[in-house]
């Protein structure tokens, strides 16, 4: 069993071979992992919202998809990972309730998924696995030694990405 590193909502962290990065209870948030298999260095972010608001300068950057991934990439590079080898996996972005006001702001899960995909595409990072959307909560465990992400849910069997 590796060294377990827990990542809270609006937070991120990295690990090396032997570490397991875990984020629990993803709802509309999206868990994203980036991995360089050659150096066996990987990171995970638990993002809450799609984009850093333009009219604000006091927000927590780890909360937003774009700024969180910027930070994660920086951190991984400093640890010796190579950005051109990065591969991504993602989970979450669910809609837990059927909101009756189905206005745009109510679909944060879908918007988070889109924001992460857009960022990865722009950065030329391929998405190697994805378990997103629908209406259930997820826990994401990323084994940095193997690059495997296990998605756990309450009602279904584990899914390995």
């Amino acid at each position, binding site marked *: 069993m590796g060294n377990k590193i827990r990542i809270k909502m609006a937070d991120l962290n990295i690990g090396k071979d032997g570490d397991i990065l875990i984020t629990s209870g*993803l709802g509309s948030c999206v868990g994203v992992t980036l991995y360089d298999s050659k150096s066996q260095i990987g990171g995970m972010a638990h993002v*809450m919202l799609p984009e850093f608001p333009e009219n604000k300068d006091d927000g927590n950057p780890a909360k937003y998809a774009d700024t969180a991934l910027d930070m994660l990439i920086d951190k991984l590079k400093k640890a010796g990972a190579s950005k051109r080898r990065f591969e991504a996996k993602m989970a979450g972005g669910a809609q*837990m*309730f059927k909101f009756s006001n189905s206005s745009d*702001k109510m679909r944060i899960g879908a918007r988070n998924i889109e924001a992460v995909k857009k960022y990865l595409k722009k950065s030329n990072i391929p998405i190697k696995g994805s378990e997103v959307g629908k*209406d259930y*909560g*997820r826990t994401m465990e990323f084994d940095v030694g193997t690059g495997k992400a296990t998605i756990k849910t*309450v009602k279904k069997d584990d899914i390995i990405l």
Partner: protein
Amino acid sequence: MNLDQKLSELGPIQLDALKEVASIGAGNAATSLSNMLNGKIEMTVPEVNIMPVNQIPEIMGGAENLIIAMLVETEGDMEGGVLFALDTKAANRLIELLTGQSANIEDDLGEIEASALKEIANILTGSNLNAFAQMLDMTIKPDVPSLAYDMAGAILEVCFIELGQVGDYGLVVETEFKSDTAQGINGNFFLIPDPDSLEIMLKKLGVLDGE
């Protein structure tokens, strides 16, 4: 100063003001529930806390703990919602009290169980919202409840993000029910106004100075 900073600086006097309103709401709710269940239901004086959103799952037993939650969206002067959350055991007890039949939602969460829980959520949120609406002279229109049975972290996260949007802090009202026929039914009540509405509410309570 943004709203999160203001919230994090609320002191005991301010929280007491909120607690008083919440107590009236809980009292109303207990009366309505007693009438509905033909038995005496008491509710403890609620605990009111302002806490960082990412710590809220901990009070429900951790992010992965299975809970059942009824969400009622609100419109009017308080936009946002109210979430009423129970653990499996408490939900089963409440369904039994209401329907007179044994319930086990872990194996079978059918229409009867779901509608019983939604009905209870309607009464509880209605009573609580009425108290807030009257005390604060606000119009609050509750919608029909929707239900989710899943990880506490996922449910709470969705509610606070989708309704609260930017907030890092949540207003948590924790209440315990007691009935003469069933023991230890704990319920948690979360008031989730959007940031604008929360600011209005706090100002009306005299908790926040106008700027």
